[in-house]
């Protein structure tokens, strides 16, 4: 395992320590073991790895949606007890958004769906209403409030699900493959929205196998393939071709191109890596 030390990291708001998880007897997916991750407060952590490497399992363990067979989940320095109360508190403060929005939309209308969480928290009605309005506004979908959920486009449904999680006012938002299935425009719009949440102080954990996205967007990165292959600042972890290939991932374009252009003298030696092909095109104009 490679650990790049990161002196600048904030204290972890959420952490998993030595997590072990094996699906129930008979299931074909084997064990995932000894996984330790730290989620520094106020930052974006990207979890990368191949399919079947345990990304979703790790996210679900961190959000209290699965109980580890061994190891601990630590919230704000305190170990989460595997009791109703402990797990309830973890779930409230750490909200998980699954990949497929259809798995999370089960009410008739958008506003009803978004109110599901706050109502379960036992909040009084005016507060629930206020939270729903706020969450819909944060996702820029206030106009969809009264729409039936099954008539929305895929991108809209993704936003409604995010609003539903946000309405719980979590400290940490955990997103499983948030950009999967979105077209480039949808990806950019979602990233802009997530950028707003990040600026407002929400800690984000995202899983992806898009190294370019992680490199451009995350502060910290974890490479996971049934165990942690590397963890540390995104810039260090995601530019090491050997590490990426060990995690069965493809290197990112951004840093590769940046290095090549700097080496060729096409850009100054201090120029940052391009984040999009558009930036490269502007160079050659």
């Amino acid at each position: 395992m490679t650990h790049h030390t990161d002196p600048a990291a904030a204290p972890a708001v959420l952490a998993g320590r030595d997590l072990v998880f094996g699906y129930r007897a008979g299931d074909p997916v084997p064990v995932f073991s000894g996984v330790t991750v730290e989620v520094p407060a106020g930052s974006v952590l990207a979890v990368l790895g191949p399919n079947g490497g345990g990304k979703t399992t790790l996210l679900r363990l961190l959000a209290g949606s699965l109980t580890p067979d061994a190891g601990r989940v630590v919230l704000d320095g305190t170990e989460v007890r595997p009791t109703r109360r402990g797990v309830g508190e973890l779930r409230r403060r750490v909200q998980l958004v699954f990949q497929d929005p259809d798995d999370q939309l089960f009410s008739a209308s958008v506003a009803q769906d978004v109110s599901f969480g706050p109502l379960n928290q036992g909040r009084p009605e005016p507060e629930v209403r206020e939270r729903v309005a706020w969450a819909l506004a944060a996702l820029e979908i206030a106009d969809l409030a009264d729409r039936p959920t099954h008539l929305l486009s895929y991108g809209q449904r993704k936003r409604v699900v995010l609003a539903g999680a946000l309405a719980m006012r979590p400290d940490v938002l955990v997103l499983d493959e948030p950009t999967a299935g979105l077209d480039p425009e949808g990806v950019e719009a979602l990233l802009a929205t997530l950028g707003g949440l990040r600026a407002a102080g929400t800690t984000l954990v995202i899983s992806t196998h898009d190294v370019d996205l992680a490199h451009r967007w995350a502060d910290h990165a974890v490479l996971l393939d049934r165990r942690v292959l590397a963890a540390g600042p995104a810039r260090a972890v995601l530019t090491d071709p050997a590490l990426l290939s060990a995690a069965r991932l493809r290197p990112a374009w951004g840093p590769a191109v940046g290095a090549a252009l700097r080496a060729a003298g096409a850009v100054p030696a201090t120029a940052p890596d391009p984040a999009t092909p558009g930036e490269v095109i502007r160079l050659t104009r």
Partner: protein
Amino acid sequence: MHIAEGFLPPVHAVAWTVAAAPFVVHGARAVTMAVRTDPDAKLLLGASGAFCFVLSALKIPSVTGSCSHPTGTGLGAVLFRPPVMAALGTVTLLFQALLLAHGGLTTLGANVFSMAVAGPWAGYGGYRLVRALTARLPETTALGLAVFTAATLASLSTYTVTSLQLALAFPDAGSGIPGAFAKFAAVFSLTQIPLAVIEGLITVVIVRLLSTVARDELLRLAV
């Protein structure tokens, strides 16, 4: 409430199989007819069967703290009608026996009689009756009442028939079959009666939601 494998004496197991057979054959014929007239029906019936199985595998809160499952037969009877439900219920029970060990293979006939025949018919009867009585009430209220009645009645009648099946197999030494019925009914009432009420409430929530998000399907099924 599934009678476990081997719990009934062989003669009773055979007798209940014979009793359930005409209903199942009738249901199977209804299914084959539906499939013959409309090739889409095959896939819809397969999906409905899977829905019935998944419904009966849900865990619902119970007083005893043990894990309980809804029967789903009341909802199934309202959505698919009792004859089709006899066939789908039999498939569900067969799968439950082989995939979950809920109920047995020799007791399949007895379980089919209580859960795929008696339950759906009682539930559907209740549903029709309440629908007729509440024709003047607003649709949402009338539908809610009827569906609650159907689900609760289906669950309760399943429980009653099962108790009766057990009483017939194991008459009380002192008071015979009525006494045995009282005993079995009492022992299982602890879990089954609250379960019936909760299942009724859940079913109302389901149908309420369906009437907004799946109106076309409900119209197609003529609920």
